[in-house]
């Protein structure tokens, strides 16, 4: 019975989606030519000829995410920040109790993981600092580095975090450093404007029609695309150590931390 219900619901969903996206035209007109909006964004992503409009990034997705609709990404970062705060609030006091324990997986798994972790870190950093040139960016790099926290928790057990010198307070500090760096990048035009009296806009990356303010586009001949590399690296820190916090807290042993989690309520009942 259960299998029939699952099969029928999957078949109905697939049929509905197939109908909506093909015959009913729910995706709008699907021609082979590029749409006007996409053509505009592709033309503006990297265009030294249109200095007032371009984001100076050959990676159109990063140009859109951190420049054309940068405020949207800023608030996505805030949402993620709130989720981490909620996790920290629920687990308050638990990291101090400990609850690591465990011995992890076999020696073979540990050795293989030890070889994989440096590669994982290298790939994550590369995705972050090349985010304005090739596919990738801050969130992608942060998610890639967060896999290291899962590997540490699962393969080496929760106690391995302290062995490699990462604890919850350090991860919170690094995540906050990332968030502060994003704020610094966002507010730099404001500081520039209040010091020089010239027009500048929050989150401004490059010159605008009525504003000469611009972050450096090249450093030593290397394209860094104004704010984009700084925002990517800052987001990388904020996201990766945000995930580190989550997995450090989740990997604590329930039976050990439970007393710390429910302790306050019990205490208030007796007092």
């Amino acid at each position: 019975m259960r299998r029939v219900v699952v099969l029928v619901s999957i078949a109905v969903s697939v049929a509905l989606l197939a109908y909506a996206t093909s015959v009913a035209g729910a995706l709008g007109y699907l021609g082979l030519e590029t749409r006007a909006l996409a053509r505009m964004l592709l033309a503006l992503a990297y265009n030294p000829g249109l200095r007032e409009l371009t984001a100076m990034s050959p990676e159109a997705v990063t140009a859109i995410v951190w420049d054309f609709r940068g405020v949207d990404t800023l608030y996505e970062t805030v949402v993620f920040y709130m989720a981490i705060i909620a996790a920290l609030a629920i687990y308050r006091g638990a990291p101090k109790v400990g609850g690591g324990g465990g011995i992890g997986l076999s020696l073979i798994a540990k050795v293989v993981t030890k070889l994989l972790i440096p590669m994982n870190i290298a790939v994550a950093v590369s995705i972050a600092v090349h985010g304005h040139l090739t596919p990738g960016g801050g969130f992608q790099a942060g998610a890639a580095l967060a896999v290291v926290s899962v590997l540490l928790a699962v393969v080496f057990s929760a106690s391995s975090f302290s062995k490699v010198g990462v604890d919850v307070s350090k991860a919170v500090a690094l995540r906050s450093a990332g968030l502060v760096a994003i704020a610094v990048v966002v507010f730099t035009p404001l500081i520039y404007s209040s010091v020089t009296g010239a027009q500048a806009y929050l989150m401004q990356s490059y010159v605008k029609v009525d504003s000469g303010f611009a972050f450096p586009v090249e450093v030593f001949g290397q394209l860094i695309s104004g704010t984009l590399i700084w925002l990517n690296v800052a987001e990388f820190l904020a996201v990766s150590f945000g995930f580190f916090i989550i997995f450090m807290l989740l990997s604590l042993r329930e039976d050990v931390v439970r007393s710390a989690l429910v302790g306050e309520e019990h205490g208030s009942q007796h007092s």
Partner: protein
Amino acid sequence: MDVTLVLLALFSTVGLVFTYLAISERDLVRAIIYSAVQSSAYAVLLYLLRAPDIVLVYLPVAVGLYPAALLFLVGKTEKVDGG
């Protein structure tokens, strides 16, 4: 015939089969593994649809972080779905 379309059809079918397995499986640990296989098929689909930015975030999240978070969650509750 276009190879991309054939691969798209193949990997969407794999994704569909593992979606069914993930939903109908009562052992939650197995269901999570089926779900991760389904996500891997979707990652290939996104790559074939030329969305490398999404692939880069989808792979670590769908194959690493999301199954890990669910496994920790199952570890705190019961291994078999009682429903």
